[in-house]
Protein backbone atom coordinates (compact mmCIF):
# COMPACT_ATOMS: atom_id res chain seq x y z
CA UNK A 1 0.00 0.00 0.00
CA UNK A 2 1.28 3.44 -0.89
CA UNK A 3 1.88 5.93 1.89
CA UNK A 4 -1.19 7.42 3.51
CA UNK A 5 -2.38 10.60 1.86
CA UNK A 6 -3.47 13.65 3.74
CA UNK A 7 -7.04 13.73 5.01
CA UNK A 8 -9.83 15.09 2.88
CA UNK A 9 -10.08 18.84 3.47
CA UNK A 10 -12.46 20.28 6.04
CA UNK A 11 -15.56 22.17 4.87
CA UNK A 12 -17.90 24.42 6.81
CA UNK A 13 -21.60 23.88 6.14
CA UNK A 14 -24.31 26.56 6.04
CA UNK A 15 -27.99 25.70 5.71
CA UNK A 16 -30.98 27.88 4.82
CA UNK A 17 -33.74 26.46 7.00
CA UNK A 18 -36.55 27.79 4.83
CA UNK A 19 -37.21 30.51 2.31
CA UNK A 20 -36.87 33.95 3.82
CA UNK A 21 -34.13 32.98 6.29
CA UNK A 22 -30.36 33.42 6.11
CA UNK A 23 -28.01 30.53 5.67
CA UNK A 24 -26.74 29.59 9.12
CA UNK A 25 -23.57 27.73 10.03
CA UNK A 26 -24.47 24.22 11.20
CA UNK A 27 -21.13 22.42 11.46
CA UNK A 28 -18.34 20.99 9.40
CA UNK A 29 -17.36 17.85 7.55
CA UNK A 30 -14.60 16.33 5.43
CA UNK A 31 -14.91 15.77 1.69
CA UNK A 32 -12.55 15.21 -1.22
CA UNK A 33 -14.11 17.99 -3.32
CA UNK A 34 -16.90 20.56 -3.38
CA UNK A 35 -19.54 18.28 -4.89
CA UNK A 36 -18.88 15.55 -2.36
CA UNK A 37 -19.03 18.15 0.42
CA UNK A 38 -22.52 19.14 -0.73
CA UNK A 39 -23.71 15.54 -0.82
CA UNK A 40 -22.22 14.76 2.57
CA UNK A 41 -23.77 17.95 3.97
CA UNK A 42 -27.18 16.81 2.77
CA UNK A 43 -26.76 13.42 4.46
CA UNK A 44 -25.22 14.69 7.69
CA UNK A 45 -27.10 17.94 8.30
CA UNK A 46 -30.50 17.69 6.55
CA UNK A 47 -31.95 14.25 7.29
CA UNK A 48 -35.22 15.77 8.54
CA UNK A 49 -36.09 18.63 6.19
CA UNK A 50 -33.80 21.02 8.03
CA UNK A 51 -33.01 22.94 4.89
CA UNK A 52 -33.93 24.15 1.43
CA UNK A 53 -30.43 25.27 0.43
CA UNK A 54 -26.87 24.38 1.45
CA UNK A 55 -23.59 26.28 1.10
CA UNK A 56 -20.26 24.55 1.67
CA UNK A 57 -16.91 26.30 1.79
CA UNK A 58 -13.46 25.02 2.60
CA UNK A 59 -12.60 25.99 6.16
CA UNK A 60 -9.16 27.10 4.99
CA UNK A 61 -10.81 29.74 2.76
CA UNK A 62 -12.46 31.52 5.69
CA UNK A 63 -10.84 34.63 7.11
CA UNK A 64 -11.84 35.16 10.72
CA UNK A 65 -11.23 37.87 13.27
CA UNK A 66 -9.10 36.73 16.14
CA UNK A 67 -10.46 36.73 19.69
CA UNK A 68 -7.27 38.55 20.77
CA UNK A 69 -8.13 41.61 18.70
CA UNK A 70 -11.68 41.67 20.05
CA UNK A 71 -11.33 45.04 21.73
CA UNK A 72 -9.70 47.14 19.01
CA UNK A 73 -11.74 45.49 16.23
CA UNK A 74 -15.13 46.08 17.78
CA UNK A 75 -14.34 49.26 19.70
CA UNK A 76 -15.74 51.61 17.02
CA UNK A 77 -19.23 50.22 17.56
CA UNK A 78 -19.05 50.30 21.33
CA UNK A 79 -18.84 54.05 22.00
CA UNK A 80 -21.38 55.33 19.49
CA UNK A 81 -24.56 55.16 21.50
CA UNK A 82 -26.17 57.70 19.15
CA UNK A 83 -26.52 54.86 16.61
CA UNK A 84 -29.33 53.44 18.74
CA UNK A 85 -32.87 54.81 18.69
CA UNK A 86 -33.04 54.86 22.49
CA UNK A 87 -30.37 57.62 22.52
CA UNK A 88 -32.97 60.21 21.52
CA UNK A 89 -35.52 61.79 23.87
CA UNK A 90 -38.89 62.18 22.19
CA UNK A 91 -41.98 63.21 24.16
CA UNK A 92 -44.33 60.31 24.86
CA UNK A 93 -47.29 62.03 23.20
CA UNK A 94 -45.66 62.16 19.77
CA UNK A 95 -47.30 59.31 17.87
CA UNK A 96 -45.69 56.61 15.68
CA UNK A 97 -42.08 57.23 16.77
Amino acid sequence: MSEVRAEWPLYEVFVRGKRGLNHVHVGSLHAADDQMALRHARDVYTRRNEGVSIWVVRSAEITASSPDEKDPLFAPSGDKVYRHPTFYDIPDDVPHM
Partner: protein
Amino acid sequence: MTAVPGVSADVDPEVVESFESTIGRHDRIEPRDWMPEGYRKTLVRQIAQHAHSEIIGMQPEGNWLTRAPSLRRKAILLAKVQDEAGHGLYLYSATETLGVSRQQLTEMLISGAQKYSSIFNYPTPSWADVGTIGWLVDGAAICNQVPLCRTSYGPYGRAMIRICKEESFHQRQGYELLMTMMRGTDEQRAMVQESVDRFWWPSLMMFGPPDADSPNTGQSMAWGIKRHTNDELRQRFVDMTVPQAEALGVTLPDPDLRWNEERQAHDFGEIDWDEFWTVVKGGGPCNAERIAHRRRAWDDGAWVREAATSFAERSGS
Protein backbone atom coordinates in the same frame (compact mmCIF):
# COMPACT_ATOMS: atom_id res chain seq x y z
CA MET B 1 -6.35 36.03 40.67
CA THR B 2 -7.29 32.42 41.19
CA ALA B 3 -4.86 29.72 40.24
CA VAL B 4 -6.13 27.73 37.28
CA PRO B 5 -5.06 24.09 37.12
CA GLY B 6 -2.83 23.29 34.18
CA VAL B 7 -1.95 26.91 33.39
CA SER B 8 1.74 27.73 33.21
CA ALA B 9 3.02 30.99 34.64
CA ASP B 10 3.90 32.51 31.25
CA VAL B 11 0.28 32.71 30.09
CA ASP B 12 -1.06 36.25 29.85
CA PRO B 13 -3.18 36.71 32.99
CA GLU B 14 -5.70 38.68 30.96
CA VAL B 15 -6.68 35.71 28.79
CA VAL B 16 -6.93 33.50 31.86
CA GLU B 17 -9.17 36.09 33.47
CA SER B 18 -11.31 36.24 30.32
CA PHE B 19 -11.69 32.44 30.30
CA GLU B 20 -12.59 32.36 33.99
CA SER B 21 -15.17 35.11 33.71
CA THR B 22 -16.76 33.50 30.64
CA ILE B 23 -17.14 30.25 32.59
CA GLY B 24 -18.27 32.19 35.66
CA ARG B 25 -21.21 33.81 33.88
CA HIS B 26 -22.16 30.47 32.23
CA ASP B 27 -21.30 31.81 28.81
CA ARG B 28 -19.72 29.64 26.11
CA ILE B 29 -16.08 29.12 25.24
CA GLU B 30 -15.49 29.10 21.47
CA PRO B 31 -12.76 27.35 19.47
CA ARG B 32 -10.43 30.31 18.99
CA ASP B 33 -10.54 31.41 22.64
CA TRP B 34 -7.64 30.72 24.91
CA MET B 35 -8.38 27.78 27.24
CA PRO B 36 -6.39 25.88 29.89
CA GLU B 37 -4.70 22.78 28.53
CA GLY B 38 -6.60 20.66 31.08
CA TYR B 39 -9.91 22.00 29.80
CA ARG B 40 -8.95 21.17 26.23
CA LYS B 41 -7.76 17.68 27.16
CA THR B 42 -10.86 16.91 29.18
CA LEU B 43 -13.07 17.99 26.30
CA VAL B 44 -11.12 16.01 23.72
CA ARG B 45 -11.38 12.91 25.88
CA GLN B 46 -15.07 13.33 26.62
CA ILE B 47 -16.29 14.41 23.17
CA ALA B 48 -14.13 11.82 21.38
CA GLN B 49 -15.41 9.06 23.64
CA HIS B 50 -18.91 10.22 22.90
CA ALA B 51 -18.25 10.30 19.13
CA HIS B 52 -16.67 6.85 19.20
CA SER B 53 -19.69 5.52 21.11
CA GLU B 54 -22.01 6.69 18.34
CA ILE B 55 -19.84 5.09 15.67
CA ILE B 56 -19.36 1.78 17.50
CA GLY B 57 -23.00 1.97 18.55
CA MET B 58 -24.03 1.33 14.95
CA GLN B 59 -22.82 -2.26 15.21
CA PRO B 60 -25.10 -3.90 17.81
CA GLU B 61 -28.21 -2.71 15.99
CA GLY B 62 -26.76 -2.92 12.50
CA ASN B 63 -26.59 -6.62 13.32
CA TRP B 64 -30.38 -6.76 12.80
CA LEU B 65 -30.75 -4.67 9.65
CA THR B 66 -30.95 -7.59 7.27
CA ARG B 67 -33.25 -9.57 9.58
CA ALA B 68 -35.79 -6.97 10.66
CA PRO B 69 -39.23 -8.64 10.76
CA SER B 70 -40.99 -6.14 8.48
CA LEU B 71 -40.18 -3.45 5.94
CA ARG B 72 -41.48 -0.84 8.39
CA ARG B 73 -39.10 -1.98 11.12
CA LYS B 74 -36.26 -2.22 8.67
CA ALA B 75 -36.76 1.34 7.41
CA ILE B 76 -36.91 2.62 11.00
CA LEU B 77 -33.79 0.74 12.03
CA LEU B 78 -31.92 1.93 8.95
CA ALA B 79 -32.83 5.54 9.77
CA LYS B 80 -31.73 5.06 13.35
CA VAL B 81 -28.37 3.54 12.48
CA GLN B 82 -27.84 6.35 9.95
CA ASP B 83 -28.56 8.85 12.74
CA GLU B 84 -25.88 7.24 14.91
CA ALA B 85 -23.39 7.79 12.10
CA GLY B 86 -24.56 11.40 11.84
CA HIS B 87 -24.19 11.92 15.59
CA GLY B 88 -20.68 10.53 15.47
CA LEU B 89 -19.84 12.98 12.69
CA TYR B 90 -21.27 16.02 14.52
CA LEU B 91 -19.17 15.10 17.53
CA TYR B 92 -15.99 14.39 15.55
CA SER B 93 -16.38 17.86 14.00
CA ALA B 94 -16.70 19.37 17.46
CA THR B 95 -13.58 17.50 18.62
CA GLU B 96 -11.62 18.71 15.62
CA THR B 97 -12.21 22.34 16.68
CA LEU B 98 -9.92 21.50 19.63
CA GLY B 99 -6.99 20.75 17.34
CA VAL B 100 -7.21 16.99 16.86
CA SER B 101 -7.55 15.60 13.34
CA ARG B 102 -10.23 13.16 12.23
CA GLN B 103 -7.57 10.66 11.26
CA GLN B 104 -5.97 10.84 14.70
CA LEU B 105 -9.35 10.26 16.28
CA THR B 106 -10.04 7.20 14.16
CA GLU B 107 -6.60 5.84 14.92
CA MET B 108 -7.04 6.41 18.66
CA LEU B 109 -10.31 4.48 18.51
CA ILE B 110 -8.94 1.46 16.68
CA SER B 111 -5.73 1.37 18.70
CA GLY B 112 -7.73 1.45 21.95
CA ALA B 113 -6.06 4.71 23.06
CA GLN B 114 -9.52 6.26 23.44
CA LYS B 115 -12.59 4.55 24.83
CA TYR B 116 -16.25 4.32 23.90
CA SER B 117 -19.24 3.53 26.07
CA SER B 118 -19.01 0.09 27.65
CA ILE B 119 -22.65 -0.65 26.76
CA PHE B 120 -21.76 -1.37 23.13
CA ASN B 121 -19.59 -4.28 24.16
CA TYR B 122 -22.67 -6.35 24.93
CA PRO B 123 -24.13 -8.57 22.18
CA THR B 124 -27.60 -8.32 20.60
CA PRO B 125 -28.68 -11.95 20.11
CA SER B 126 -32.43 -11.18 20.11
CA TRP B 127 -34.67 -8.90 18.02
CA ALA B 128 -36.10 -7.59 21.30
CA ASP B 129 -32.64 -6.13 21.95
CA VAL B 130 -33.29 -3.56 19.22
CA GLY B 131 -36.27 -2.33 21.24
CA THR B 132 -34.46 -2.53 24.56
CA ILE B 133 -31.52 -0.54 23.24
CA GLY B 134 -33.87 2.19 22.04
CA TRP B 135 -35.77 2.27 25.30
CA LEU B 136 -33.03 1.80 27.93
CA VAL B 137 -29.73 2.59 26.23
CA ASP B 138 -30.97 5.61 24.29
CA GLY B 139 -33.06 6.59 27.31
CA ALA B 140 -29.94 6.62 29.47
CA ALA B 141 -28.08 8.49 26.74
CA ILE B 142 -30.80 11.16 26.69
CA CYS B 143 -30.50 11.61 30.48
CA ASN B 144 -26.79 12.15 30.04
CA GLN B 145 -27.05 14.32 26.98
CA VAL B 146 -29.84 16.80 27.69
CA PRO B 147 -27.78 18.67 30.33
CA LEU B 148 -24.81 18.67 27.93
CA CYS B 149 -26.76 20.99 25.60
CA ARG B 150 -25.71 23.68 28.14
CA THR B 151 -22.08 22.59 28.38
CA SER B 152 -19.53 25.41 28.41
CA TYR B 153 -17.84 24.53 25.12
CA GLY B 154 -19.88 26.00 22.26
CA PRO B 155 -19.32 23.42 19.49
CA TYR B 156 -20.04 20.53 21.90
CA GLY B 157 -23.27 22.12 23.13
CA ARG B 158 -24.46 22.79 19.59
CA ALA B 159 -23.76 19.21 18.55
CA MET B 160 -25.66 17.97 21.59
CA ILE B 161 -28.71 20.07 20.72
CA ARG B 162 -28.91 18.46 17.28
CA ILE B 163 -28.37 15.01 18.78
CA CYS B 164 -31.00 15.38 21.49
CA LYS B 165 -33.62 16.43 18.95
CA GLU B 166 -33.02 13.23 17.02
CA GLU B 167 -32.53 10.93 19.99
CA SER B 168 -36.15 11.18 21.06
CA PHE B 169 -37.21 9.23 17.96
CA HIS B 170 -34.71 6.54 18.92
CA GLN B 171 -36.20 6.01 22.33
CA ARG B 172 -39.80 6.09 21.17
CA GLN B 173 -39.30 3.61 18.32
CA GLY B 174 -37.66 1.21 20.80
CA TYR B 175 -40.46 1.48 23.32
CA GLU B 176 -43.08 1.06 20.60
CA LEU B 177 -41.27 -2.03 19.31
CA LEU B 178 -41.34 -3.55 22.80
CA MET B 179 -45.02 -2.64 23.30
CA THR B 180 -45.83 -4.42 20.05
CA MET B 181 -44.02 -7.55 21.20
CA MET B 182 -45.71 -7.39 24.62
CA ARG B 183 -49.08 -7.50 22.84
CA GLY B 184 -47.95 -10.66 21.02
CA THR B 185 -47.46 -14.24 22.18
CA ASP B 186 -46.10 -15.51 25.51
CA GLU B 187 -42.92 -16.34 23.68
CA GLN B 188 -42.54 -12.74 22.48
CA ARG B 189 -43.21 -11.38 25.97
CA ALA B 190 -40.54 -13.72 27.32
CA MET B 191 -38.11 -12.43 24.71
CA VAL B 192 -38.70 -8.86 25.87
CA GLN B 193 -38.22 -9.77 29.55
CA GLU B 194 -35.04 -11.72 28.78
CA SER B 195 -33.64 -8.76 26.86
CA VAL B 196 -34.48 -6.29 29.63
CA ASP B 197 -32.83 -8.64 32.14
CA ARG B 198 -29.60 -8.48 30.15
CA PHE B 199 -29.57 -4.73 29.45
CA TRP B 200 -30.83 -3.21 32.72
CA TRP B 201 -27.59 -3.28 34.71
CA PRO B 202 -25.29 -2.35 31.83
CA SER B 203 -27.63 0.61 31.15
CA LEU B 204 -27.12 1.84 34.73
CA MET B 205 -23.36 1.51 34.23
CA MET B 206 -23.58 3.92 31.27
CA PHE B 207 -23.55 6.84 33.72
CA GLY B 208 -20.02 5.93 34.74
CA PRO B 209 -18.46 5.07 38.08
CA PRO B 210 -20.05 6.28 41.33
CA ASP B 211 -19.23 9.86 42.28
CA ALA B 212 -16.78 8.72 44.95
CA ASP B 213 -14.69 6.98 42.25
CA SER B 214 -15.00 9.67 39.60
CA PRO B 215 -12.02 11.93 40.25
CA ASN B 216 -12.56 14.19 37.22
CA THR B 217 -16.15 15.10 37.99
CA GLY B 218 -15.38 18.02 40.33
CA GLN B 219 -13.12 19.79 37.87
CA SER B 220 -15.46 19.07 34.94
CA MET B 221 -18.33 20.62 36.83
CA ALA B 222 -16.27 23.66 37.84
CA TRP B 223 -15.50 24.19 34.16
CA GLY B 224 -19.13 23.78 33.20
CA ILE B 225 -18.34 20.78 30.99
CA LYS B 226 -20.56 18.50 33.07
CA ARG B 227 -23.67 19.86 34.73
CA HIS B 228 -24.59 16.90 36.99
CA THR B 229 -22.72 14.08 38.67
CA ASN B 230 -22.90 10.47 37.48
CA ASP B 231 -24.98 9.39 40.46
CA GLU B 232 -27.48 12.24 40.05
CA LEU B 233 -28.09 11.30 36.44
CA ARG B 234 -28.30 7.60 37.24
CA GLN B 235 -30.95 8.29 39.87
CA ARG B 236 -32.92 10.44 37.45
CA PHE B 237 -32.83 7.62 34.88
CA VAL B 238 -34.06 5.00 37.36
CA ASP B 239 -36.91 7.26 38.48
CA MET B 240 -37.94 7.92 34.89
CA THR B 241 -37.74 4.30 33.82
CA VAL B 242 -39.67 2.54 36.59
CA PRO B 243 -43.13 3.77 35.50
CA GLN B 244 -42.23 3.04 31.87
CA ALA B 245 -41.42 -0.56 32.81
CA GLU B 246 -44.74 -0.85 34.61
CA ALA B 247 -46.64 0.47 31.60
CA LEU B 248 -44.80 -2.00 29.41
CA GLY B 249 -45.44 -4.90 31.76
CA VAL B 250 -41.84 -5.99 32.32
CA THR B 251 -39.96 -6.50 35.57
CA LEU B 252 -36.68 -4.68 36.12
CA PRO B 253 -34.26 -7.33 37.40
CA ASP B 254 -33.45 -5.77 40.76
CA PRO B 255 -35.04 -7.15 43.97
CA ASP B 256 -33.91 -4.04 45.87
CA LEU B 257 -35.67 -1.62 43.58
CA ARG B 258 -38.39 0.22 45.49
CA TRP B 259 -39.81 3.70 46.08
CA ASN B 260 -38.32 5.56 49.00
CA GLU B 261 -40.95 7.93 50.34
CA GLU B 262 -38.45 9.87 52.42
CA ARG B 263 -36.03 10.54 49.54
CA GLN B 264 -38.85 10.86 46.99
CA ALA B 265 -36.75 8.63 44.74
CA HIS B 266 -36.22 4.95 44.04
CA ASP B 267 -33.68 2.94 45.96
CA PHE B 268 -31.90 0.38 43.87
CA GLY B 269 -29.39 -2.43 44.28
CA GLU B 270 -25.62 -2.40 44.14
CA ILE B 271 -24.14 -2.23 40.63
CA ASP B 272 -21.48 -4.81 39.82
CA TRP B 273 -18.56 -2.42 39.36
CA ASP B 274 -16.14 -5.28 38.78
CA GLU B 275 -18.07 -6.13 35.66
CA PHE B 276 -18.03 -2.48 34.61
CA TRP B 277 -14.25 -2.17 34.95
CA THR B 278 -13.70 -5.52 33.22
CA VAL B 279 -15.68 -4.32 30.21
CA VAL B 280 -14.04 -0.86 30.19
CA LYS B 281 -10.62 -2.51 30.22
CA GLY B 282 -11.42 -4.64 27.19
CA GLY B 283 -12.79 -7.82 28.75
CA GLY B 284 -16.43 -7.46 27.72
CA PRO B 285 -18.19 -9.99 25.51
CA CYS B 286 -17.70 -7.99 22.27
CA ASN B 287 -14.81 -5.55 22.77
CA ALA B 288 -12.46 -7.30 20.35
CA GLU B 289 -15.16 -7.84 17.75
CA ARG B 290 -16.32 -4.20 17.79
CA ILE B 291 -12.83 -2.82 17.27
CA ALA B 292 -11.94 -5.45 14.67
CA HIS B 293 -15.06 -4.53 12.71
CA ARG B 294 -14.27 -0.81 12.85
CA ARG B 295 -10.67 -1.45 11.81
CA ARG B 296 -11.81 -3.58 8.89
CA ALA B 297 -14.23 -0.88 7.71
CA TRP B 298 -11.44 1.72 7.94
CA ASP B 299 -8.92 -0.45 6.08
CA ASP B 300 -11.39 -1.63 3.46
CA GLY B 301 -12.45 1.96 2.83
CA ALA B 302 -8.89 3.18 2.22
CA TRP B 303 -9.09 2.73 -1.55
CA VAL B 304 -12.31 4.76 -1.68
CA ARG B 305 -10.72 7.64 0.22
CA GLU B 306 -7.67 7.46 -2.05
CA ALA B 307 -9.72 7.29 -5.24
CA ALA B 308 -11.84 10.29 -4.25
CA THR B 309 -8.72 12.29 -3.48
CA SER B 310 -7.16 11.36 -6.83
CA PHE B 311 -10.34 12.29 -8.66
CA ALA B 312 -10.51 15.65 -6.87
CA GLU B 313 -6.88 16.38 -7.72
CA ARG B 314 -7.36 15.49 -11.37
CA SER B 315 -10.53 17.49 -11.81
CA GLY B 316 -8.93 20.46 -10.03
CA SER B 317 -11.72 21.03 -7.55
